[in-house]
């Protein structure tokens, strides 16, 4: 998105623009300026830079989002166990405080950079860019960015990732996509985690979660798994491998941007 060309506009929202021109002088002697600039332009600009950086190094970047405790770090640990020796991986961890998650990843022999956001409820593209300076991207196949556990704010900030993976753990309830549409609309893959608890809880229906996702006009695949028992892990690992291959095929065509609604991010 740029400052003034109006590429934020679609035929759906162009009526928002008043027809009285770029600069108008009002009766009280003030000047009125049409701006039409996305408030997240600075972040989106940095995110595009991050994405170019990933592309130059042929790295596939995945943004993992969920509420706190949905099992993002456990999923990463199980993923690293399954793919180590096959793929070169690194992790950026976002949390308000502590290095705990980065330490869990480093225990697996994988590079992990912890971003402590203090009171911020999300990662933004500038934070990720700073973390990239501490990582060697050469020879990496995939970079996982574990966002701050939060179903609200992280969805609004592009980090430069190629794909969003949103986790929904079975204890949270199957109607979360209806309650948090901004987050679940942004998902390129929905992972229903902690499937081993479904039997105990008895009230989570993966099909209902999938139906709520479709109501957001989101065609993303839905996978059910348990990082602890290993159930369903193979489909997730296959998705990663397939997406890395697709990403590498797209690289020469420079078609790695993401399109969500009327925004290109």
């Amino acid at each position, binding site marked *: 998105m740029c400052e003034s060309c109006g590429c934020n506009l679609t035929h759906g929202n162009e009526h*928002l623009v008043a027809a009285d021109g770029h600069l108008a002088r009002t009766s009280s002697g003030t000047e009125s*300026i049409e701006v039409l600039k996305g408030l997240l332009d600075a972040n989106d600009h940095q995110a595009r830079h991050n994405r170019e950086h990933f592309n130059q190094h042929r790295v596939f970047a995945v943004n993992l989002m969920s509420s706190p405790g949905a099992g993002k770090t456990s999923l990463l640990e199980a993923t690293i166990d399954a793919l180590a020796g096959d793929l070169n991986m690194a992790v950026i961890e976002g949390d308000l405080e502590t290095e705990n998650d980065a330490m869990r990843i480093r225990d697996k022999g994988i590079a992990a950079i912890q971003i402590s956001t203090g009171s911020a*409820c999300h990662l933004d593209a500038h934070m990720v860019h700073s973390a990239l300076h501490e990582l060697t991207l050469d020879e990496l196949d995939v970079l996982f960015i574990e966002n701050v556990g939060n179903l609200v704010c992280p969805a609004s900030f592009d980090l430069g990732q190629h794909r969003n993976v949103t986790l929904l753990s079975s204890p949270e309830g199957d109607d979360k996509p209806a309650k948090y549409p901004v987050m679940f609309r942004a998902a390129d893959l929905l992972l229903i985690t902690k499937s081993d608890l479904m039997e105990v809880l008895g009230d989570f229906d993966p099909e209902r979660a999938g139906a709520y996702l479709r109501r957001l006009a989101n065609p993303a695949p839905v996978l059910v798994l348990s990082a602890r028992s290993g159930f369903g892990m193979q489909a997730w690992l296959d998705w990663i491998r397939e997406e890395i291959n697709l990403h590498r095929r797209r690289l020469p065509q420079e078609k790695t941007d993401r399109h969500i609604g009327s925004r290109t991010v």
Partner: protein
Amino acid sequence: MKYWQPMHELAICQALIAQVAAVARSEHASSVTDVYVSVGPLSGVECPLVRSAFPFAAAGTVAGEATLHLRQTPVRVSCEDCGAETEVAANRLICGRCSNWRTQLISGDELLLQRVVMRSGRPRRNNDV
């Protein structure tokens, strides 16, 4: 690595103020009186929180006395099947006519600085309109 940043509506207000200040500078304005922003329900930003965060971000800037006008845009989708354009709820983006879920969002995720009204600090030239 450590960051100290406030909740995201305040972060967004700070980005807004940076843009408003840049416009005011380029137009040689002495002060900003009004700021117009369009917010779609799918932008992930809550209007009441933006409203309460704005004075904190604006304090001490050229927009310190400015009034914030928020305009909530409707959520509209275009159906890939029947072609209808309908206004829908933020968590139900299916076609309002045929109920198909394969739709494209055409408005409702905007977060746009739309207009800035300011007092000119520049002496008026003869050829100014």
